[in-house]
């Protein structure tokens, strides 16, 4: 058909023309070959690539977010749930004039309607949590930081001078005194705030209502400042999405505000091209900072998390648990079954046209709601424990006292009834996104509010560890009636000093916390016996609680010493046994280990694994899995011996010479607890050996028929009987039903007792003596202490 036909018998001129025509003729063929070749390359060779680009044009995958599981306490109170939130999104590829849209959006966000809706929404938040208090604290901290910096410069000069004079002993790495004082103030502010709020609940409609109103208005005032947004800011956000077919989230709002904005956008579609308001769930913690550390926080998935969790179907920009239970049960496998708080997001694949109108729904996969958790926590006890801990920290009188933690364990199951750590964390702040104020607070390098001190912080546990020694003594067959003389003559080095106790048997020794008795008995039975009982109690090991970032602590052994020391210290010496018997030296324990230890004593040697989550539920509330008590270890000892230990611990709180006598008087006879106090030397450089002590207390109640076991450590709380024991008493009261009313009495007690401190205590007076002695004894002598 395309065979070139050429005429016969052409003239010379015609031949020349024909030749040139032939060139054109062939040129046409070449051009078409190019076109078909290019077509082949695009459609056949590169076809698949273009198909995927075409698909990404028309298919949009809409994520249908799964509802994150709810967390309940043991009584069904909601501790964490997911509330709908609204995000304003823009598809930049649908917008011709980004500048005009930015202008419109900025106007919309700053409009009166949005402002009003926002204000009412903020009011609700302010009323349901105390996050503003924390923000205030952080503000103070911020100011102090600046001031401290300024003062640090001056301090340096002073110190340099002091060093010249030969008196420079201050450790610059520790907190400067001014800073300590200011942190103390900050903690005091928290105390006042919580005190006033509890007072308000008491007085209800009186003056308190007004002050609360004022507080809220002040809070709103500070928050509304950042609700306004300029056109430039909006434009900057929008410009990040240029060239992308995905939506850009401009702002997120609470549900009510989002609805208001959605209505305005729907009414004026021409003004807001490419703008969509979509509902998204957001985590909400109705009890504010209460139980914050245990519940944990949620946040955007990090790169390292994503790397690990991609295989479980997690993707970039997912919100996942970052700490606490939210993290532990984010994706939890047990017995081959997978449980997940977050559930599985659903997807709807839709076909859209160039204007993003949905033409067709291609496929839909419904979201699977996350599993819910039912905790062993009792919210009421928890709240009282936290309040009490805060009050005790604030009233400790030592500017270094900024933190502490406590735990209450159900002795029958190992379930944690309450667990507190101070300073507090309000997980709502993380769900909402931290403000700069909140960042100052949460990432404060000394306060470390994010750390759950009950499981992540290790301390020397002091005399509370003597219960381990006591168990070991009885286990070694020592009679509780064997007497040891504790008098000045027997305080020979390297024994740690003690107060004068005269002849002490087992009962006296526990009640009065006699150092000499435990040191000598420990030496008699040998360190091996002591260490093996310590390990059986779970020291030096993780308790196995279902919370992330637990630390092991340290129970020193001869092997450990050999590996981690040099020279003389490579060997185990007799003083190592001495110090260990009193929970000093290298010993590092966590509060959960101490609580577990108390529970083990209450259980006559049966150590249960502590846990927080009782059951995992599906979204309809059916129990999928419930946790049974798990025996981790058993300390073999006669019941008679256990009774002896309990009797001795009862002496601590009720005996005339008990270190915590009279404290639990308000608990009636049948609920009378057993306990052990501890005043632990921190062993940290820069701490005053006599005054900068951690206050520790362990106990269980009722002593006769134990239900719950307790442990508390107040950093720099001083004597355990004057700090941690108060938290114990308040917690026991709350647990056994001494409700809110007694709260006020508790506070009075506290203030009375702290003011009466000097006159009330006789053991404390001994401390003053020892202070005098301290000047001329060596380091090991100083390490010892007693109450």
């Amino acid at each position, binding site marked *: 058909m395309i065979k070139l036909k050429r005429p016969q018998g052409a003239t010379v001129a015609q031949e020349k023309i024909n030749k040139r025509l032939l060139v054109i003729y062939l040129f046409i063929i070449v051009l078409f070959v190019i076109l078909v070749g290019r077509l082949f390359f695009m459609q056949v060779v590169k076809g698949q690539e*273009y198909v995927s680009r075409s698909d990404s044009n028309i298919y949009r995958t809409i994520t249908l977010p799964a509802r994150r599981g709810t967390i309940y306490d043991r009584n069904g109170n909601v501790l964490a749930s997911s509330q709908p939130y609204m995000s304003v999104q823009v598809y930049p590829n649908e917008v011709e004039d980004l500048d005009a849209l930015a202008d419109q959006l900025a106007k919309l966000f700053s409009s009166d309607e949005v402002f009003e809706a926002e204000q009412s929404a903020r009011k609700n938040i302010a009323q349901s949590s105390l996050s503003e208090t924390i923000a205030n604290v952080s503000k103070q901290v911020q100011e102090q930081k600046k001031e401290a910096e300024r003062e640090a410069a001056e301090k340096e000069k002073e110190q340099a001078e002091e060093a010249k004079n030969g008196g420079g002993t201050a450790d610059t790495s520790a907190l400067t005194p001014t800073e300590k004082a200011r942190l103390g103030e900050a903690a005091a502010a928290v105390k006042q705030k919580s005190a006033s709020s509890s007072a308000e609940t008491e007085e209800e409609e009186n003056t308190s209502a007004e002050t609360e109103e004022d507080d809220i208005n002040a809070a709103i005032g500070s928050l509304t400042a950042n609700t306004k947004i300029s056109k430039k800011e909006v434009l900057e956000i929008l410009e990040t999405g240029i060239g992308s077919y995905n939506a850009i989230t401009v702002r997120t709002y609470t549900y009510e505000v989002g609805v208001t904005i959605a209505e305005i956008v729907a009414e004026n579609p021409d003004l807001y091209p490419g703008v969509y308001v979509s509902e998204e769930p957001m985590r909400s913690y109705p009890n504010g900072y209460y139980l914050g550390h245990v519940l944990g926080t949620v946040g955007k998935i990090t790169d390292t998390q994503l790397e690990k969790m991609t295989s479980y179907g997690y993707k970039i920009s997912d919100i996942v648990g970052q700490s606490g239970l939210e993290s532990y049960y984010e994706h939890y496998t047990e017995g081959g079954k997978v449980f997940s708080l977050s559930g599985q997001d659903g997807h709807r694949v839709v076909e859209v046209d160039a204007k993003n109108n949905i033409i067709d729904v291609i496929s839909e996969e419904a979201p699977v709601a996350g599993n819910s958790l039912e905790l062993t926590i009792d919210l009421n006890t928890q709240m009282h424990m936290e309040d009490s801990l805060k009050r005790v920290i604030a009233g400790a009188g030592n500017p270094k006292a900024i933190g502490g933690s406590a735990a209450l364990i159900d002795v029958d199951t190992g379930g944690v009834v309450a667990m507190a750590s101070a300073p507090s964390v309000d997980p709502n702040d993380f769900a909402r996104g931290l403000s700069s104020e909140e960042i100052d607070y949460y990432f404060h390098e000394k306060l470390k509010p994010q750390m759950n001190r009950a499981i992540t912080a290790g301390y020397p546990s002091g005399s509370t560890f003597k219960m381990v020694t006591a168990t070991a003594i009885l286990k070694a067959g020592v009679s509780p009636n064997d007497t040891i003389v504790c008098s000045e003559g027997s305080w020979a080095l390297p024994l740690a000093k003690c107060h004068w106790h005269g002849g002490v048997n087992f009962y006296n020794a526990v009640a009065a916390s006699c150092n000499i008795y435990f040191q000598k008995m420990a030496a008699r039975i040998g360190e091996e016996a002591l260490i093996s009982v310590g390990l059986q109690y779970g020291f030096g090991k993780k308790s196995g609680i279902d919370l992330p970032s637990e630390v092991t602590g340290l129970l020193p052994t001869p092997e450990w010493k050999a590996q981690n020391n040099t020279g003389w210290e490579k060997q185990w010496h007799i003083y190592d046994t001495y110090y260990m018997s009193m929970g000093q030296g290298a010993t590092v324990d966590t509060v959960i280990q101490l609580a577990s230890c108390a529970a083990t004593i209450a259980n006559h040697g049966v150590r249960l694994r502590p846990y927080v989550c009782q059951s995992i539920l599906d979204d309809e509330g059916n129990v999928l899995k419930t946790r049974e008590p798990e025996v981790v270890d058993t300390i073999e000892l006669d019941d008679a011996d256990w009774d002896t230990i309990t009797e001795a611990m009862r002496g601590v709180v009720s005996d005339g010479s008990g270190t915590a006598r009279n404290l639990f008087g308000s608990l009636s006879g049948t609920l009378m607890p057993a306990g052990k106090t501890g005043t632990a030397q921190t062993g940290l450089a820069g701490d005053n050996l006599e005054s900068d002590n951690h206050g520790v207390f362990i106990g269980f109640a009722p002593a006769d028929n134990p239900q719950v076991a307790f442990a508390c450590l107040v950093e720099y709380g001083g004597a355990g009987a004057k700090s941690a024991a108060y938290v114990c008493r308040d917690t026991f009261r709350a647990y056994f039903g001494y409700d809110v009313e007694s709260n006020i009495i508790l506070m009075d007690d506290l203030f009375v007792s702290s003011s009466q401190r000097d006159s009330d205590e006789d053991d404390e007076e001994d401390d003053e003596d020892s202070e005098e002695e301290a000047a001329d004894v060596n380091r090991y002598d100083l390490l010892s202490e007693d109450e």
Partner: protein
Amino acid sequence: MSTDARKSSDQLKRAKQKRRLHMSQETRRRRGIYNSFDWVTFGLFALLLLVSVIVMSTASANAMSDDSGYYLRRHLFMIAVGFGVFVAVTLFDYRRYKDFLTQGYIIVCVMLLITLIFGTGDGANRWIFGVQPSEAAKVAMIVLFAAYLDQNRKRLKEPKFVLQSMGYMAIPTGLIFMEPDLGTSLVFIVVMLVMLYVAGANRRVFGAVIGIMAAFIAIIFVTLFIYTKGFNENLSGDIPWIPLHRYQLMRLAIFINPDMDALNTGYHIIQSKIAVGSGGLFGKGYGNGTQVQGNFLPEHHTDFIFSVISEEFGFFVTAAILCLFMVFLLRLMNKAFFARDFFGTLIISGISAMMIFQVFENVGMAMGIMPVTGLPLPFFSYGGTSMITNMAAVALVFSVSLRGRKV
């Protein structure tokens, strides 16, 4: 072959033609028809038009939201009108166009001038009274330039004349360029060069002109390279010494790198390439082209109609349509060998050049191997003036062929 034999075979053929065309010997002589009508080429042409109707029916289905058949009806109407023009132009003896050399030139230039001043259009003055004079001018100028060269055939070797003939074409080309319509003015330049080449213009001058043009194009791209920082940044404005608008320069720039302005100038070409490429071997099916039907590809019933063909019908059908186009154009081109005179040869070469350039530019643009210039695909793209003038152009070839030497 003896004269008698030839005569008798001629007679036989004429008898056949008489039956086919139902045209009396007298009419044929009056109209100067000596040759038989090429039914095969006409059949290919009709097939091409049929395919264009099918393509238009799917390409324009969503172009007007309240009347999905509007463009298809208009397309069919234009084919009908075009067919009337086709018959008239075919029957008209092309040699008589020589009589209107001066008048024709003046009319074309005046029309283009009026369009330039009073014309309407989106960013360019291209339309007047609903027609696009530049489209008609393309065919008119081919005939006029052929006549002009035919008239001055003896001077073709004079360098001066070659330049003069270029000046002759430069006036209408310049008027169109100023509309502005870069694509159509490029058609004029290409047609002029092909016609001068076929006519046998002075080689040195011809070569020099081509060299200057190539150098000019190279300079434009080098300048663009500098101004766009290696084809990465958008132009901020016109380049003072290049007589092209910013958008025209951007079109040239995005030809090198469409992604540099992916949502504006580069958007068409990116979406067109996606449409073509995603068609694959068999296409997405009639009416199922997602790029087209989802409106991701703009102007898919006009300039980018080739992307519709390739997206919905796939490689095999699209390649077949390209082959159909090629065979049709080659058969038109082939008729140049048998033209009765120099004038006829030049007309056919000019029209072939016009057609092939438009097809190559349009299809190449859709596939990203030619810059975007806004030229329609002959017979496929929607556009009344374009359809009618293209049919008239084909008819001109037939008019020359009918009066040509025997095949």
